[in-house]
């Protein structure tokens, strides 16, 4: 479904990604794990068109999306939940959700998706008219995921959804991520520093170090891989 082929991305003269290749099939949860500054976020930003890779190609459903403008990429069915959640702080929860469906014209389905999002995260319904900036960290993460779902994406890009959240909330959010994948059939690309958590929900995983993919395997195998254990799982 998504094919990243040998992309190289730069910030000025500094190379952030070296020959990164990742393949994601429909219906999978794929995780990309690695340390801070390894290039995980840059990989996601390249998919969304915020960063344009200098060389290499990104295909989504057979269509080249590298070099396309971000709004075209969203239109093709990719939704991105960025690191740090990026809630519009002075817009209400409802307005944030509405904006998730910004490009959609099918108003009836948008309404259905709103109901769906509220069943996934009932807390958001209670906070509907509150400004986004006044929500707690966990609620903001729920809102960020919901806003992305409002685009009814074929594939969801999640950047560090566990960042800065209490373990209980993290578990709740990861359960929902699994449900979105299993019940709605949405393909998920999950970037996480919390490797243990990510590998437990994912089907396959990639390990990134200094802008390079160094390992790729089934998530279950990565969980017991000696190197991964030492470097990322703290065992």
């Amino acid at each position: 479904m998504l094919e990243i082929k040998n992309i190289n991305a730069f910030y000025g003269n500094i190379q952030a990604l070296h020959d990164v290749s990742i393949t994601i099939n429909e219906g999978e949860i794929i995780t990309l794990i690695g340390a801070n500054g390894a290039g995980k976020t840059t990989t996601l930003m390249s998919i969304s068109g915020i960063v344009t890779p200098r060389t290499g190609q990104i295909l989504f459903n057979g269509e080249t999306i590298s070099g396309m403008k971000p709004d075209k990429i969203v239109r093709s069915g990719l939704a991105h939940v960025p690191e740090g959640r990026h809630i519009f702080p002075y817009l209400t929860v409802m307005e944030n959700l509405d904006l998730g469906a910004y490009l959609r014209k099918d108003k009836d389905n948008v309404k259905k998706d709103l109901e769906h999002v509220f069943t996934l995260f009932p807390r958001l319904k209670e906070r509907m008219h509150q400004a986004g900036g006044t929500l707690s960290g966990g609620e903001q993460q729920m809102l960020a995921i919901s806003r992305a779902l409002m685009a009814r994406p074929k594939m969801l890009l999640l950047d560090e959804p566990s960042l800065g959240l209490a373990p209980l909330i993290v578990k709740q959010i990861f359960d929902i991520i699994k449900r979105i994948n299993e019940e709605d059939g949405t393909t998920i690309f999950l970037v996480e520093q919390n490797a243990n958590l990510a590998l437990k929900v994912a089907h396959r995983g990639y390990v990134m170090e200094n802008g390079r993919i160094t390992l790729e395997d089934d998530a279950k195998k990565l969980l017991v891989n000696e190197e991964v254990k030492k470097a990322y799982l703290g065992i």
Partner: protein
Amino acid sequence: MDYFLELFFGGLTRGSIYALIALGYTMVYGIVQLINFAHGEIYMIGAFTALIVASVLTFYGVNTVAILILASIVAVIYSSAYGFTVEKIAYKPLRNAPRLSPLISAIGMSIFLQNYVLLAQTSDFLPFPRLIPQFHFMEPVSHIFSSAELVIVVTTMVAMVLLTLFIKFTNLGKAMRATAQDKTMALLIGIDVDRVISATFIIGSSLAALGGVLIASHIGQINFYIGFIAGIKAFTAAVLGGIGSIPGAVLGALILGWTESFATGYVSSDYEDVFAFALLVLILIFRPAGLLGKAETKKV
């Protein structure tokens, strides 16, 4: 008391015009964090366009109210085209440059447009026809609040209400607010940020042009330099109210209008600018972000 009221309504009128211009500064700043110094020139171009249209229509003997409306519409369209083009030429290529570069580019654009009008027209003050009609029902109070002032205040109020509704309820308005708050996220949900920026310049220019036409037909003369002075005042108003904030720009403009009006009336017209800028300094000392501005803190 009559004198006080006269000054009050005079200040309200002045403030309304400042508000129309200040909105352009504040909206553009809110979205691209740029002080568009060429904005005053857009206002001036609006007034000149209206003058040309009005002269032609007067020649054909069209009725004054129709001239006012047609001249306003043409001025709004023409100035919007200017605002749109200025952004594309002078600011868009510098979108990712250090913040000083577009600022210098803006000043350059302002000087260019002033001199362009100076050469294309003249450096003298040109008489502008008084297009705003005298209403009979205003006659008893016309010594404190003239028909022209009423038209300016009411038009401004209508424009503000429409702008507020637009920003609050339309898709483009929501996209503008989203872009102002978080540009990266706006891109990620599929907002065409370039289009939003263009729209912001067009709306700001339209309001400025409207202000230009109204004030020119009230005062009765224009020249190429009016944009600079009005621009500086409106910019002051925007900063006073908190740059980036729409209600702030309106509030700042009204306060500035009243300050100038009362200073002129009770002290001396020589002191109008002294009081206006002294007020600015005072407010910025106690509220650096402006009256309704948001201090730069963010919950992370």
